[in-house]
């Protein structure tokens, strides 16, 4: 009896060995993070149905996943042969990581929203599809020209288009009108210059409330870019190969930022957490804040006080970087899926949908014709703040984007944070950042 059990056991173990060998290769191959749930299942569906995996991030407050799911539902209804499966993939950084991992694992998503600044990195990885062919077939020059040029700056390289603007923003100044009244400032006259802002912020500061908060965690470089643009030119070249950190104007811009906390005592010292700034504003712990226009609807729905939105104050000129995510399509996906994905992108960027998306979130509607839609005209009439970010686009510039974006951005962020926490002085830190960035970009400048 015992020998029978033993031999049966041996047979079972040998079978395990065989199955272990055969499934070993596929288990290591398919253990990729962020893989969509149904890579090859379209073969088992009826021949007409194309399934698209759609990765998207959420970077601002509000019930955005519901809205995106709703839009995908609508698309699926209008296009019976195509099913879009939206997959929420976290923050911008998480989404980028998941997409890059999927690309490396040769299973890229069919369509995704990713930071517009990842353009150069994605091109270096040879991961994205140029979209000019699709544009020529469906939409043409008219389609592309309808987008605001400020947004196209991070979407095109050498005249070729690689991504389509979707959820785009600029930084705006939110200010608490009630607080302004309280300290004797005119609530309809937000600060328009650096000096005015420092002065007002100092006046507005009292026990339990700061005059202004500019977040410095997460996207430190973005806020800094705004100050730099207001004092001169952008921090990098169009082709993403060179950066300019240690110019005198940029040092002055950084010094102004530090002085708001150190000299004018109108801002908390140290690093200010990105996510808590809007709640600080809503709680009245800060009278003004720099933040993305993408938070506009969230602030509008939750503010218990009268608030205003204005251009960021100017030094030599107004200025703000654009921000946000674009639609991308990836190499290595099925041709039929590419056609379907392009349809989806066109759907999502139709003027009335772009307008609705802007109303629901606060992002700038990416197309000029979106502002001609009835719902948008009505909305802007009732809520003029919604037009501020769009109007500021006149002074909008491309968001910071270079080759090897991650490393260069980290070098800049680290050094900015060192200055804001008082551990380094502006000129020295920016020089260090410049050196580090030059080293990283050296191989792209050969």
């Amino acid at each position, binding site marked *: 009896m015992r020998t029978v059990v033993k031999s049966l056991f041996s047979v079972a173990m040998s079978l395990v060995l065989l199955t272990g060998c055969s499934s*070993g290769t596929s288990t290591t191959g398919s253990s990729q993070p962020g893989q969509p749930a149904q890579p090859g299942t379209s073969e088992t569906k009826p021949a007409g149905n194309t399934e698209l995996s759609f990765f998207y991030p959420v970077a601002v407050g509000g019930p955005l996943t519901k809205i995106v799911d709703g839009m995908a539902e609508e698309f699926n209804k209008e296009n019976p042969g195509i099913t879009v499966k939206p997959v929420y993939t976290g923050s911008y950084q998480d989404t980028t990581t998941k997409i890059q991992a999927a690309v490396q694992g040769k299973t890229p998503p069919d369509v995704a929203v990713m930071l517009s600044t990842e353009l150069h990195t994605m091109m270096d990885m040879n991961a994205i599809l140029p979209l000019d062919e699709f544009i020529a077939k469906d939409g043409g020059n008219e389609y592309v020209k309808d987008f605001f040029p400020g947004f196209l700056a991070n979407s095109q390289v050498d005249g070729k288009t690689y991504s389509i603007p979707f959820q785009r923003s600029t930084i705006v100044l939110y200010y608490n009108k009630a607080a302004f009244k309280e300290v004797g400032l005119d609530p309809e006259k937000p600060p328009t210059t650096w000096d005015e802002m420092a002065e007002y912020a100092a006046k507005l500061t009292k026990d339990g409330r700061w005059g202004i908060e500019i977040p410095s965690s997460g996207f430190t470089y973005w806020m800094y870019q705004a100050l730099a643009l207001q004092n001169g030119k952008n921090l990098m070249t169009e082709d993403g190969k060179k950066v300019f950190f240690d110019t005198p104007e940029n040092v002055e811009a950084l010094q102004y930022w530090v002085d708001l906390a150190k000299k004018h005592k109108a801002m908390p010292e140290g690093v200010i957490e990105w996510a808590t700034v809007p709640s600080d504003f809503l709680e009245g712990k800060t009278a003004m804040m720099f933040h993305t226009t993408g938070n506009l609807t969230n602030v509008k729905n939750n503010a218990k006080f009268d608030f205003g939105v204005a251009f960021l104050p100017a030094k030599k000129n107004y200025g703000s970087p654009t921000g946000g995510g674009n639609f991308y399509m990836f190499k290595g996906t099925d041709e039929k899926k590419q056609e379907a994905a392009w349809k989806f992108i066109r759907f999502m960027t139709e003027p009335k949908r772009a307008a609705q998306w802007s109303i629901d979130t606060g992002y700038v509607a990416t197309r000029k014709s979106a502002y001609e839609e009835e719902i948008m005209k009505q909305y802007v009439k009732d809520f003029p703040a919604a037009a501020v970010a769009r109007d500021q686009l006149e002074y909008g510039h491309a968001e910071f984007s270079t080759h090897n974006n991650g490393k260069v951005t980290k070098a800049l962020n680290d050094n900015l944070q060192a200055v804001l926490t008082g551990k380094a002085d502006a000129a020295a830190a920016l020089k260090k950042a410049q050196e580090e960035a030059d080293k990283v970009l050296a191989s792209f400048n050969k």
Partner: protein
Amino acid sequence: MGELRAKWKVNVYAWLLLLPSLIFLLLFTFYPVWQTVILSFHQADLGSPEPFFNGIDNYKQMLEDDVFWKVLTNNLWFALGTVPTSVALALGMALFANKALRGKGFIRTAYFYPTVVPMIAVANIWLFIYTPEYGALSHVMDWFGKGDMNWLGDQSNVMWAMIFMVIWKEAGYFMIFYLAGLQNISQELYESAAMEGASAWTVFRRVTFPLLMPTTMFVSIIAFTNSFKLVDHLVIMTKGGPDNASNLLLYYIYETAFSFWDQGMASALTIVMVVLLLAVAAVQFFGLDKKIHYN
């Protein structure tokens, strides 16, 4: 002849039993480690479309990298801050929870619950505890007049904030091991000590603590390796900032691999970490082993 065949039969049987675990170990541990070693000698970043062999360049670059030395020293300080404290605290908690007659279950639950909460949830909670102005800790600090201290946004505070949180999380876990160890100490020893009129401290020093040495060694190794492995909270709370003040080696590896896509460098960093942890484990197993008495 029959003897050899019988031996062979037994051996094959043994190998077949080991086979499933061996396959997993090979596929998911040894093979990836081997691949990592190989990749660490290649240049595999965004500037090089195909990885190519570059000798020890990655290691040389690593030694010249300021951030690498910063994260390494951070990690060592972090280990120094968390290991002795959490082990000592766990021992204390175990002794207390063992003795308490009333509410034993409640005390053990209270000490243990931080362990069952996932680190990401813990990090989110503590992120708000540490928020200046209206976080829970700031309300307490208000009594001392320091309500606006920036715990996570200041280089001098952030390490302490992290250490404190990790000790809170880990001590309960180690307490379990000590509780188990305490059960194994025979009551007779305590009775004979009581008969000789030994004080509580002497009993602890001469009876309890030496007999808990195996547990202490085990718990120390776990605590030390955990101080290198635990980086989930960095993703939520500080992202390694400000300016790498709270950055730890594993988080830096993650950044290098999945933010910068410099896989060659990330592999080199990984090898360094693995070697370091192996060295520590070797010291503890071979060196300290001699000093521990087993019954």
